[in-house]
């Protein structure tokens, strides 16, 4: 049992470290999780003396991949979390729950349409929606800060549907 934990732990660490290259997660995320028993326990759940099944390893790979996704997108003038982002937020929420010293900043953004200050409100509402989901997954409020930039810091500068879609977002920024 103990050894299987360690094998899995190494695998997870390697995955995280590999993915970290060219990504925005802090470089120490992988090292942080390897020193934290919480992450490995979760991954090896239901082992019962048997070595880790490929299914669990696959699940871990998916989870590690989700951890690399740091942007949640929204519909126009909406702050509702779309179903396709549930898994992403679950992964981050559980990670935060297992790493209580980790702090994350939720930056809310909107597309350029409409008035600027209303958009600051909308960006904050989106950041708060993400915050609530993360807390439902066990993250503590003290780990999460929000800021809304409204339409002031677009990811794309165009005035077209695709730019607007990519600008309606909350960015998860690990610190």
């Amino acid at each position: 049992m103990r050894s299987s934990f360690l094998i899995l732990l190494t695998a997870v660490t390697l995955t995280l470290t590999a993915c970290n290259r060219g990504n925005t997660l802090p470089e120490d995320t992988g090292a942080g999780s390897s020193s934290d028993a919480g992450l490995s326990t979760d991954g090896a759940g239901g082992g019962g003396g048997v070595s880790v099944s490929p299914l669990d390893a696959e699940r871990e790979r998916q989870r590690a991949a989700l951890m690399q996704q740091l942007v949640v997108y929204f519909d126009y003038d909406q702050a509702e979390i779309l179903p396709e982002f549930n898994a992403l937020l679950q992964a981050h929420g559980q990670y935060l729950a297992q790493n209580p010293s980790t702090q994350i900043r939720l930056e809310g953004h909107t597309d350029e349409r409409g008035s600027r200050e209303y958009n600051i409100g909308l960006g904050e509402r989106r950041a708060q929606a993400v915050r609530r989901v993360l807390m439902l997954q066990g993250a503590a409020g003290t780990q999460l800060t929000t800021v809304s930039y409204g339409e002031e810091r677009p990811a794309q500068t165009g005035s077209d549907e695709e730019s607007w879609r990519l600008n309606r977002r909350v960015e998860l920024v690990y610190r």
Partner: protein
Amino acid sequence: MVRVVGTNARTGWLAFAATLFAFATAVAEAQFNVVIRQGSEAAVPIAVVPFGWQGGGAPALDFAGVIGADLGSSGRFAPIASRDMVSRPTQASQINYQDWRLLDASYLVLGTLAPDSAPDTFTATFELFNVARGERMTGFRLQAGRADLRKAAHRISDMIFEELTGIPGVFSTQIAYISKERRTDGTTQYRLIVSDADGENAQRVAESTQPLVSPSWSPDARRLAYVSFEGGVSGVYIQTLRTGTRERVSQRAGVNSSPSFSPDGRSLALVLSRDTGNLDIHTLDLSTQVLRQLTTDAAIDTEPTWAADGRSIYFTSDRGGGPQIFRVGTEAGQRATRITFDGVYNARPRMSPDGKYLALVNGENNRYRIAVWNVDAQRLELLTPEGRLDESPSFAPNGAQIIYATRENGRGILASVSTDGRFKTQIASVAGDVQEPVWGPFPRP
């Protein structure tokens, strides 16, 4: 200082003086130029003849050029190009009215500029004539130092505008706006700029690599409130323009947004989310620092603008679904009432100086346009039906013109429209994006 002396025989001699506004730390900035690209058919042709220069060398200032540009920027007048003028009189006795009738000029302005005996001071005179009637309408003499010659020219524009329209001119006022420049290293430089109403004399008030938003004038034109995201958090600041002294009035948890000075200048309306994450309208007494929460709804309540009497505040709320305009009294415990019902998106209200209109952004079918809400008639009138991404309307202090931001060819530019929707101008900037124009109050003597 500019000294204005009337030479109108009917009104007799009238003299007044005004202290003019100056920055302690003047930094020249990229300017915008007023360019009339949509000539209004209703614009009245006016000929401003190059002023007679009675000194040596080149004239100290092209007065006629400044005055013509001012009058044109209102959209109400179409200045006649000097190259089209067949004669260039500088005094009444030299006018051949037939020259100007052939050019279809309705009005004619002539003047002179001469150095005074005192060094670096000048005297300008101007006279305004009705071409059809062949009559002199008014005339004044002004004295100004070299540094204030543009201000003297703007003062002349104000007097001509008021004589011809009955509405005080706004050419001696200032405009604050945000300029945004993307740099090659990927960062964006945000600047809060104050310039003369014609875009000249632009001065940098604040600069940051983080967003600067929501500039708001104090009623005495001496201070600007604005939001800065420096340090990655939003904060509301008040800066005194003359000295550059800056005070942070709110950097509470969550959103700090949308500052707006009360008409008496003593309070600031602002929008805070505090710990709840829910945006509500608050007022802050600037001397006692007492904070009062005016709305508690779970909706986004933002973009406050004071009623002219200071006793209520109009704001945007999406409590009914989409954003609409509401009003709430500034005394504690008052209930907000909904004002606009037309359309699905009405936001960012700004009160006219006389309290009769709200300028706002009306959204429909993916288009955002400037509209005015007539408070008494309870009627919404679209001012920029051709607009697509119009935003941030702001009334000129005479209430007759609204400046706003829009986009053209991917750039943020400024434009203006008269409150009745008849006269429109577009304003070109030299570089980068310009947004959130806020028209300053009349300068106080």
